[in-house]
């Protein structure tokens, strides 16, 4: 059995750019005794990934490490290349972030698992037949069908790919598994499967687990101890329940509060953030009875090689003025397709009806352009939604120019930026997207939509790619837009906590159909459909190592 310990570790990246040297990790000491679990939480830039890469000496050449990293009592810095190779994978292995990019797209996944065996433990599994048998054994261990061995990565779903990565990490029977955001891109149900799989492995085999994530609830579901990192420093460390439920530091409280507990009345219609958006109207708008956007029996199908696939089947929805409607479902449930159909970006099947303010969705290009002034959409990834070469002013003004709105251009842009709480707007006008943080970029995208004074905003996973602390800010902005401007919003998400935070109504979607639709309070607190219950049960709860103890 092997212990891993970081002794007073500092890691600095040398850089010739104007930023100078960057201290990524500062004086961190942590212990991971054999057979225990430790979670490290922190936002992007907190140095958590850099720290765990040092555990296998995988840092780039430009990094300088001070202090000691001990694996089984040996200082990693003292090992020569042959010795470090022996350590990698057979003593400690990594499940990398983003399984989509860590697998070779042109090789069968089974071959890729065997590759790890060939490189690291030829002595244990001596013949090709034995290695093949071991590979099938590993697939069974991560609950995958043996037929998947001959599949290529693109034929697998995100959750299956992540399981292949875990199988690969287990291949050489390591003592320590290091998991870097293993469930970030996955929806709650798959996330639960992966986490309980990891937890079971830890319990059965006595493997130590070092896991990092930005989501405290995910970590607390599997790990016995938690460490919180910020700006490269260790902020808080202690038993998982202690850190989650009785945090000492303000920063930890903020992280813990970012993802709400469904049923907690305090966070209902009140996303927790240090920077809430201002409600300026004395009598804020509330949901009315006037229907603005209505969908009746909307169906969308795609022609694929295996025949037509029905992505959306007979969906009925209605969005009222000043209503926030959350459409919740797993990935692949047809949420995004539905949103595109509502905007007229996606061809719908005959018989489908979409009406805006009582009139059917126009089909001609010119009428559609006018319609788009009224209904705007915010795409999933703010970084990709902005042309990297154009300034904030140009990005926000784009809609106005396209729509031919020429008067008061400057005032409209500044107004929209201020409505999106990017103040003072003048400071941002000439910035280009790469100079902005993730949250600021999302505000620019929102401002670009607001500049057109739309009645309806459709947002596709508006906070999925943002840090926990920014999440609350953006959600409170949506709430403020509704209350100040009387805007309606349809928000697509896989995050039930988001619905609990800001939505009036929620529609639960499964395989293209809406299985439950109603007021948030009634649906989330008293779910009728079994799928809604399943989704709710899969949401990780803070503290109490829920997954480990349930199994």
């Amino acid at each position: 059995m092997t212990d891993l310990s970081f002794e007073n570790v500092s890691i600095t990246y040398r850089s010739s750019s104007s930023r100078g040297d960057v201290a990524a990790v500062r004086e961190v000491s942590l212990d991971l005794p054999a057979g225990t679990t430790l979670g490290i939480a922190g936002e992007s830039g907190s140095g958590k990934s850099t720290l765990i890469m040092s555990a296998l000496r995988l840092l780039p050449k430009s990094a300088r490490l001070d202090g000691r990293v001990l694996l089984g009592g040996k200082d990693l810095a003292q090992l020569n290349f042959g010795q470090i190779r022996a350590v990698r994978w057979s003593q400690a292995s990594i499940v990398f972030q983003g399984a989509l990019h860590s697998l070779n797209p042109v090789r069968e996944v089974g071959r890729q698992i065997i590759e790890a065996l060939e490189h690291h433990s030829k002595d244990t599994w001596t013949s090709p037949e034995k290695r093949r048998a071991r590979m099938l054994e590993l697939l069974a261990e991560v609950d995958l069908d043996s037929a998947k061995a001959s599949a290529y990565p693109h034929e697998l779903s995100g959750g299956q790919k992540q399981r292949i990565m875990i199988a690969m990490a287990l291949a050489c029977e390591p003592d320590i598994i290091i998991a870097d955001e293993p469930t970030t891109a996955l929806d709650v149900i798959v996330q639960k499967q992966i986490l309980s799989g990891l937890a079971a492995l830890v319990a059965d085999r006595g493997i130590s687990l070092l896991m990092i994530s930005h989501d405290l609830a995910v970590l607390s579901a599997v790990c016995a101890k938690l460490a919180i990192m910020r700006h490269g420093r260790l902020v808080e460390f202690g038993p998982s329940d202690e850190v989650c439920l009785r945090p000492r530091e303000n920063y930890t409280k903020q992280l813990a509060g970012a993802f709400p507990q469904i049923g907690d009345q305090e966070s209902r219609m009140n996303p927790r953030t240090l920077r809430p958006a201002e409600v300026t109207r004395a009598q804020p708008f509330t949901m009315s009875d006037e229907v603005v956007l209505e969908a009746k029996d909307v169906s969308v199908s795609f022609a694929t090689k295996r025949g037509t696939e029905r992505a959306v089947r007979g969906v009925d929805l209605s969005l009222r003025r000043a209503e926030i409607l959350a459409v919740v479902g797993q990935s692949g449930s047809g949420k995004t397709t539905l949103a595109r159909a509502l905007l007229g970006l996606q061809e719908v099947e005959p018989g489908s009806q979409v009406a805006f303010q009582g009139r059917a969705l126009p089909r001609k290009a010119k009428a559609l352009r006018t319609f788009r002034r009224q209904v705007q959409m915010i795409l999933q990834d703010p970084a990709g939604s902005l042309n990297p070469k154009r300034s904030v002013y140009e990005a926000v003004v784009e809609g106005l120019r396209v729509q031919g709105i020429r008067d008061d251009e400057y005032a409209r842009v500044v107004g929209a930026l201020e409505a999106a709480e990017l103040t003072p707007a003048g400071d941002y006008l000439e910035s280009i997207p790469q100079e902005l943080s993730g949250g600021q970029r999302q505000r620019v995208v929102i401002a670009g939509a607001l500049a057109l004074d739309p009645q309806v905003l459709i947002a596709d996973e508006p906070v999925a790619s943002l840090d926990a602390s920014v999440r609350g800010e953006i959600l409170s902005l949506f709430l403020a837009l509704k209350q100040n401007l009387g805007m309606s919003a349809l928000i697509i998400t896989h995050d039930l906590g988001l619905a609990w935070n800001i939505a009036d109504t929620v529609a639960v979607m499964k395989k293209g159909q809406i299985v439950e639709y109603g007021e948030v309070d009634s649906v989330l607190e008293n779910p009728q459909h079994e799928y809604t219950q399943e989704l709710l049960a899969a949401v990780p709860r803070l503290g109490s190592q829920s997954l480990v103890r349930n199994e």
Partner: protein
Amino acid sequence: MSANTPAEAAPGPPDRDPRERGAAIDGAKLVRERRLNNAKKNWALFRSDVPALLGALVLLFFVVIALAAPLIAPAAMLDVTKQLDAPRYAPPSLEHPLGTDGLGRELWVRILWGARVSILVGVAATVMSMVIGTIMGLAAGHFSGLFGGLIMRVIDFFIVLPSLLLAIVLSSVLERGVFTIVIAIGLTSWASTARIVRSQTLSVESRLYIERARILGAGHRHILFRHLLPAVMPLVLANTTLTVGGAIIAESTLSFLGLGDTSKESWGTILKNSMDVSAATSGYWWYVLTPGIAILLVVLAFTMVGRALEAIINPALRSR
């Protein structure tokens, strides 16, 4: 493209708050400063590349001598009737720096005058092929369905066509002249540019900001000219410098085959004349080598500069 920011922002309604207008103009100034800074950074990168700098110097030298040819060597020096006293096939010496040809003309004078046509044809043909290639590539990448497919087939047709053969046919069918050569080269060399532009367009087309523009209500024109063209432009520019070299060689080839304008000097014409008198086998080595080396130098210089520009646009190439 982006020059229209101040242009469109400036003519606002007259009743506009002057403070706001001041801020808008200030904004335009900041944009200009940012562009200037970028240009400075790129220039520093270019300067640190020794081969590229050498290439640029060689190009500058040839362009200057081409422009100044009438001043350095009056056209009379090419008139065979005035060279009756000059020795024929004189090898390079102090008196005749690059030697003379079979009619007693100084080779250096012919190179000087030939540079005018060779470089002009090279650049003009490249510009023509770039314009066609960019338009066709953008259209093929942006429009899907029947129209895009049709354009792609046209591009494919020009790719599989043996370009030299087509150029020969074109220049023998059309009237003789420099312009004909430009058209012949331009029309036959755009297809590969179109392919490059198309692949870049396809990759930019799938970015979310294009989808966002569509959601804002943008039509084809807006997406093509505001987003796609600026995104492919740097690539096209780097490609241009690389293509000029090829066009100069093509011009030399056509002139060498006797399809050029025989009344005008060009490096290819000099090569053809040297072949007509079997200079290589008769020991008049300077007659063959001089135009050959001139072509080599200019093409190499264009390639060096083009590679440096490519590396500036695409940082991933720098460490290779």
